[in-house]
């Protein structure tokens, strides 16, 4: 317990979290601080490029083993099933319409890559190792949740809302996934030599860029909350805090079953706990335009993302340490 507090304090005082808080506070105070769209996009491309490449390079030299395969499968199963759970929970806890509840559920099955990146940064600071292939697990968890949610909708309504092939292609080939998987594979192919070549670009400045990026995320999340005043009920907010805890627990269960080491187990929890706010909202706007974006964006970006970043990650580290052992 004491250790948990120490961890939480260490986490809350890391520049990464403080810059997120700065952005959040600046947005609430209605400061005009803002990042140009292109810079925010550029930073996110950088983070995907760096995390993918690092993951691939760290894996090169090792063969494909059962744990890797099982982790990927676990990711797919988690992403596909968590939305069903989230949907039931939402119907029980809130008064959302079926469409809104299904749309929200899709977000919680999918993942937030920035939460993943922040967690891996915090693991590195604490000297906890994790497997490079967790990046690939993250990538596999983006899409299945969307398909589950669309299935939920078609089951609960008359109109048949099967995904059209254009949308399917957009989801599978969305820029983030392509960059993440592509960089991962290139890192895998070029290994230590390739990594050494570009390490000064992707390793040393990584944490600094992450600080700036989280500052921007804080601004966006804070502005989202300010604008969405009234769009989400107290019960929905409670869901936004409860669901990541449930997700993380189930993630931990899978990690234990597969036998993942501490660092990877934490990341599996983080992936299960985090909610998408890029790929899934885009898919929902196309496939379910009647669902209210203010609800799902506020929950995933305004509630769950800050919760995971500040309270969630240190909690997951502490619990995983207790369960899996350091």
């Amino acid at each position, binding site marked *: 317990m004491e250790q948990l507090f120490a961890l939480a304090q260490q986490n809350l005082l890391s520049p990464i979290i403080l810059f997120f808080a700065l952005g959040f506070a600046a947005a609430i105070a209605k400061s005009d601080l803002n990042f140009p769209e292109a810079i925010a996009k550029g930073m996110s491309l950088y983070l995907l490029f760096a995390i993918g490449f690092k993951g691939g390079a760290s894996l090169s030299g090792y063969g494909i083993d059962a744990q890797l395969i099982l982790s990927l499968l676990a990711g797919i199963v988690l992403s596909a099933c968590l939305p069903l759970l989230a949907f039931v929970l939402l119907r029980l806890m809130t008064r959302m319409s079926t469409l809104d509840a299904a749309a929200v559920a899709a977000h919680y099955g999918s993942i937030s890559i920035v939460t993943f990146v922040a967690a891996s940064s915090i693991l590195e600071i604490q000297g906890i190792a994790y497997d490079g292939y967790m990046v690939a697990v993250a990538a596999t968890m983006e899409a299945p949740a969307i398909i589950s949610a669309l299935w939920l909708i078609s089951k609960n309504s008359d109109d048949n809302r099967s995904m059209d092939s254009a949308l399917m292609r957009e989801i599978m080939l969305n820029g983030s996934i392509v960059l993440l998987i592509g960089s991962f594979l290139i890192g895998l192919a070029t290994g230590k030599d390739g990594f050494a070549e570009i390490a000064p670009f992707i390793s040393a400045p990584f944490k600094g860029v992450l600080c700036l990026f989280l500052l921007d995320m804080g601004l966006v999340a804070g502005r*989202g909350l300010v604008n969405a005043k009234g769009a989400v009920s107290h019960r929905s907010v409670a869901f936004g805090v409860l669901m990541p805890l449930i997700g993380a627990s189930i993630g931990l269960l899978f990690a234990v079953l597969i036998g993942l080491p501490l660092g990877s187990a934490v990341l599996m929890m983080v992936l299960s706990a985090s909610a998408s706010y*890029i790929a899934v909202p885009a898919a929902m706007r196309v496939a379910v*335009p009647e669902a209210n974006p203010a609800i799902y964006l506020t929950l995933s970006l305004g509630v769950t993302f800050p919760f995971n970043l500040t309270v969630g990650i240190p909690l997951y580290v502490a619990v995983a340490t207790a369960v899996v052992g350091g």
Partner: protein
Amino acid sequence: MKMHEAKRIEIIIEKIMEKRLTDLLTEAGVKGYSVLPVSGGSGSSGRWSRQGQVSRAQGMSSVVCLVKPERLEPTIDAVFPLLDRHIGVVSVTDTMVIRDELF
């Protein structure tokens, strides 16, 4: 300079639907269109601006399409289903163009 009557259709629509809309326009036989970025706005679904966007799901585009008067009706009919389900506005203005073989 000889001028010809034409219609200027201006459609403000979610960026994520932009390609689907322009595909419909092309199918409807429109000979050209231009897309302008929209940096912010307000409507029945609230106020928004480019700053404070994290997702390509948000943001709008303005699609401007000059057509011959007789093409107006079929063009609007072709894109209406999309506009009906998704947020956005359409306006049609009388205008004049120079080379009407282009429209």
